[in-house]
């Protein structure tokens, strides 16, 4: 399947990935509206880690054997049959945080913006390319076919 590949040597810490992830998951999908009127209801699912000049954008690695899926008590976490992505069904998630407790990269976050559910990357389900990759100005993220053997476990 296609995966988001992180290139930390090219991440410039601008956080445009976070901006566009938020927009892609907003109701309006309009950048100005998303920030000016929906900001308290939507959050990015990619996070930039930064320590001095070193930085990279991190989102769910779409593991081959996802710990979150095995730990999910509600059945919300599932592998989408069409895209192969590990997706949290937000209508079923109860916010028990088991997935957060087991994700080895820490890519799942609490969404407490008027809700109480786990928030994670869905590879921008309907889009050809995830928003974070499409808007990365320096190819610090790329979207590539990665064989199963080379994928994170």
């Amino acid at each position: 399947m296609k995966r988001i590949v992180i290139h930390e040597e090219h991440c410039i810490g601008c956080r445009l990935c976070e901006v566009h992830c938020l927009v892609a998951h907003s109701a309006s999908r309009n950048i100005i509206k998303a920030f000016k009127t929906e900001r308290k209801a939507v959050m990015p699912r990619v996070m930039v880690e930064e320590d001095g000049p070193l930085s990279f954008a991190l989102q769910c690695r779409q593991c081959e054997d996802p710990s979150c899926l095995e730990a999910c008590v509600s059945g919300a976490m599932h592998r989408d049959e069409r895209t192969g992505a590990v997706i949290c069904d937000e209508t079923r998630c109860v916010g028990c945080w088991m997935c957060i407790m087991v994700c080895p990269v820490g890519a799942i976050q609490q969404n407490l913006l008027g809700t109480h559910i786990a928030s994670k990357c869905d590879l921008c389900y309907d889009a050809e390319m995830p928003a974070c990759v499409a808007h990365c100005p320096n190819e610090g993220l790329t979207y590539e076919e990665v064989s199963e053997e080379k994928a994170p476990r």
Partner: protein
Amino acid sequence: MRTVIIGNSASAVGVVETLREHDQRAEIVMVSEEPHMIYSRPLLDHYLAGKIGRPRLAYRSADFHQRHNVTPLFETRIERLDTAAHEAIATDGRRIGYDKLVICTGGLPIFPPIPGREAQGVYTFTRLDDVDGINARIEQQQVTDAVVVGGGMIGIKATDALTRRGVHVTMLELAPRILSAALDEAASGIMAERLRRAGVSVLTGNTLSAINSTGGQVTGVTLQDGNEVPAQLVVFGIGVRPNTTLVQGSDIVVNRGIVVDRQMRTSNPDVYAAGDVAEAYDLVVDLNRTVAIWPNAYRQGGIAGADIAGLLSHDRGGVAMNAIEVDGLPAMAIGSSNAEGGDYEVFAELDPERLRYKRLVLQGGRLVGAILVGQINRAGIYTGLIRTRMDVSDYRKQLLSESFGLLSLPEHYRKHIVTGQGIEV
């Protein structure tokens, strides 16, 4: 090839999903004592609290059996096994033949022989039937006060749910502090305070000596110290013990739970056990032990399923862990979370203003346990470090930092876990 699975929860689902992924033809029979579809037991408190409706208790969709081509046998209780004949024998005498058997019978709630426990209004808290009973009682008997016996994970979940239903709860914990198996004093104190703030009466170092009733209906409990607590509802949330009754008298070795190897095989080569009933390898303590938690159950089911399908699978072992939330304040305990003394090295930081607490336990330079209260995002990175037994001594100082993340870790480990390449773990 006929695989019979006894049970219908996480580990049973794990067996089915993995086995079916690799073997489309094998016959699979799922035997369940309960009449219900596959539901999630950890969601029972959410259901009791009214946070979710009954349909959302479903752990897998209603067509699970059909989609995976599984024959379900509901309301069938297996009484014993005839391993020589490769048969599981039900209470009604039916003999269910198998080539491979997976025991996923889970745990039985501990229900101590307290005088008066047969009164109406006394429940355990592990099955849907329990919650249906509690629900009915709350609605029909105008329950204003309840006693929850046990200040562990189950007790607190029951307490939090009942409190949200507007019931005043008195929580009884025999140990000097709540959640004593998972949390240290500081974390336990924060959670107890949180419970009290939500209106719960938390009584530690105390438990009940009798259940009082009038006309068969529970009216309260008498404590060990002689005090009485009125209640129209008593819930036992002490814990569970492995449900091993069906293997008694067979050749299958039982210690506390059914002893299994790294492929989830019992001492009988055609019988597997997975989940809360199994005594499987725990990589933190480097011993087999029973750890009744959901992720272990599902994973172990998957290992058994893979082995039956003929795949080379090997369980790396489980890590005891749990997450709980009291009145919106989350807490997590991972691995040997409250270990201290000996060769354990403990780093802890308390932020009482923001109700945040972090405690990390190292042993021989490796992270073996963690407690997080309040701020829990990224907790899984600690779990990963525990699981991979990484030597963290070079950067132990960063582990506690507020900005702790993958960048705090050595480059090769970071790159390995984000790309899947690099070092072997």
